[in-house]
């Protein structure tokens, strides 16, 4: 798919930067050219891309390359940081009226954006938060719209207020608020008809609703697959009606979702939720970092960088300790166990390999090749050893192996194989004692490429 070839392209561009030590203007330009294309392919609006790229360029040129990252990764990091901050905040919440007063929410958007579905999903979500929502059928135009809302309301057990298709949406909204007050509903959600942002008459209708009832939150529902025109739509709705937040629908598809960035950039209004599926419970919180990853299509290269950074700080002490022991030529089963733990902290081998750029495509093969179950087995074998055996590998003998095999619940041949592997590793460690003398950002993880653990 186009998706993968683009990731490839980016990675190739970043490869060119890899061997160089500094983040020069030329490097940044090369990398950002690919980033620009990636964003355009993801449907981020052209103007938004232009602005974004130039602001990143300013930040990136001359920036310090963090320890442990190559210049390419550094550019990705900056691009990603910028994307995340542009798309945030993470915990945007709907604002409710204080006390017992009714909060009125108006949903709006183009035809087919998924308003009716999102409306019911939102009601379901509010219900779980202890609100008493009322759904209101203000779409008097689309055949079947009222019925659709009624059925959805029934499914999520939220009452639906409707007056057929002969009354104006303004009158329906007014009556709905009276109805809500009588029936003790504290949130009223108006489902309005889909409309084009250039349809003056229809846009006027939304304005009239706002003039006649107190709408506290106006939510624009945007299809995650929208193309370049997302900016025009969002701008028009925001300028003419005024919106307070956005729901991004159809995020369970495979669209890269660049519209999210476009809409956020032009309206500055938070993305509140994302619609993730057909089921009416599928309305999820919005995570700017996940969205950034998705739009950029860079695999999870960044979470790898972050994870490595976090873990290395924690493990620095252990690593230092281990390094000094290794320098003396000591490497026992405890060290082996420790190094395994470090690998685990990074999220398991196959997940690490999956996250590495260039590796992503082959993750499936690697999952087969490196067996997490086998890691567990190895761990069980070491844990079945006595403290003495762990600290002094030379103690190992046939009866001991037999006991360990029983303890670990494996055949003795498995223990034999492991002990042999361990001895090989031990030899290898002695041959290159410099391995663990890492600066921050290298250490165990930095050595991963050069050192093979016989797991």
């Amino acid at each position, binding site marked *: 798919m*186009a998706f993968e070839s683009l990731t490839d392209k980016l990675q190739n561009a970043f490869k060119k930067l890899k061997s160089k030590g500094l983040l020069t203007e030329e490097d940044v330009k090369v990398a950002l050219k690919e980033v620009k294309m990636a964003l355009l392919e993801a449907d981020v609006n052209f103007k938004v891309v232009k602005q974004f790229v130039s602001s990143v360029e300013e930040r990136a040129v001359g920036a310090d390359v963090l320890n442990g990252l190559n210049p390419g990764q550094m550019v990705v990091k900056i691009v990603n940081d910028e994307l995340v901050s542009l798309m945030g905040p993470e915990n945007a919440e709907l604002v409710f009226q204080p006390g017992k007063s009714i909060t009125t929410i108006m949903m709006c958007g183009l*035809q087919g954006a998924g308003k009716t579905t999102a409306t019911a999903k939102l009601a379901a979500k509010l219900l779980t938060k202890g609100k008493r929502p009322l759904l209101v059928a203000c779409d008097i135009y689309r*055949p079947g719209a009222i019925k659709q809302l009624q*059925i959805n309301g029934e499914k999520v057990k939220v009452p639906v207020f409707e007056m057929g298709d002969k009354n104006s949406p303004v009158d329906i909204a007014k009556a709905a608020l009276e109805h809500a007050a009588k029936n003790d509903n504290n949130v009223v959600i108006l489902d309005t008809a889909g409309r084009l942002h250039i349809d003056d008459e229809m846009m006027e209708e939304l304005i009239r609703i706002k003039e006649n009832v107190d709408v506290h939150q106006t939510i624009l529902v945007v299809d995650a*697959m929208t*193309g370049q*025109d*997302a900016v025009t739509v969002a701008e028009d709705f925001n300028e003419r009606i005024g919106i307070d937040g956005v729901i991004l629908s159809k995020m369970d598809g495979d*669209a890269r979702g*660049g519209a999210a960035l476009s809409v956020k950039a032009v309206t500055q209004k938070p993305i509140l939720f994302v619609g993730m599926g057909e089921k009416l419970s599928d309305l999820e919180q919005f995570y700017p970092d996940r969205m950034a990853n998705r739009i950029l299509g860079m695999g999870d290269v960044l979470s790898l960088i972050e994870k490595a950074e976090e873990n290395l700080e924690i493990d620095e002490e252990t690593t230092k300790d281990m390094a000094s022991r290794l320098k003396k030529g000591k490497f026992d089963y405890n060290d082996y166990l420790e190094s395994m733990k470090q690998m685990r902290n990074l999220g398991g081998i196959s997940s690490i390999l999956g996250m590495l750029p260039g590796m992503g495509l082959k993750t499936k093969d690697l999952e087969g090749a490196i067996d997490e179950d086998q890691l567990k087995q190895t761990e069980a074998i070491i844990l079945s050893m006595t403290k003495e055996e762990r600290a002094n590998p030379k103690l190992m003998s046939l009866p001991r192996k037999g006991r360990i095999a029983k303890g670990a619940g494996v055949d003795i041949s498995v223990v034999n194989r492991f002990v042999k592997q361990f001895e090989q590793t031990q030899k290898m460690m002695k041959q290159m004692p410099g391995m663990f003398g890492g600066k921050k950002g290298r250490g165990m993880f930095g050595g991963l490429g050069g050192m093979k653990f016989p797991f």
Partner: protein
Amino acid sequence: MAGFFSKIFGGYKQIDEDFYDEIFEKLVTGDVGVRTSNEIVERLRDQVKENHIKSPEECREFLKNNIKEQMRLDEDAFAFEKERSVIFVIGINGVGKTTTIGKLAAMYKNEGKRVLLSAADTFRAAAAEQLGEWANRAGVEMVSGKEGQDPSSVLFDTIQSAKAKQVDVLIVDTAGRLHNKKNLMDELEKMNRLINSYYPLVHRENLVVLDGTTGQNALNQAREFSEVTKLTGFIMTKMDGTARGGIAVAIQSELKIPVKYIGVGEKITDLKRFNADEYVDSLFE
């Protein structure tokens, strides 16, 4: 939609990199996509060289004709309208399948054909009511089932009815489904086989409906739906907004699937047979 390119050609005195960049920008802004836009610009570069073109204004006709050529329909593109046919309408949620079917029904009915609709969207709440309303407006008959019923059984019933009544056109409405949901796509495949088995001798038209405001994902949609059945064309809806629907150019160029109809509004008459010249001219007006 109009005035897409109008500014560029007047604004440049010579053909330089900025000029090409701006054409690229305009194309991408119209959702034509990076790859196809690049191809179009490269083609123009070659033509400029070959034909020793000096002024930007001269490029206009070349660019126009390039896109027109790509978008032009085969002569027999609408042949199915003159035969007994079944139109299998598929697409993701919210693109306007049901509305489009209503418009198609009205169009064929007005041309004197006997039309039957199959409400095989048994998933979305009130989908059959919506199609039923369109059937009323168009004055055609419809066969429907219950919500949650196997759509294939509704389709089967419709086919029996179509045979008995000797209708000219059978139009099948299906539930919107995202193209990356395997089980739903399998269901569609089943319906496809069912038509093959039980209604084999009529002309088969398989149309995917795409939302004109959709970006590059429309390519994925067209690609995935063509795995289910051999697409004979697509319908571009919501072309009355400010979106250019340039993804149609990309689909035509990359997948060789032609646009057959475009939806330009909410009225029952707001559906047009696609005309490449008209479409492209409107971009350059």
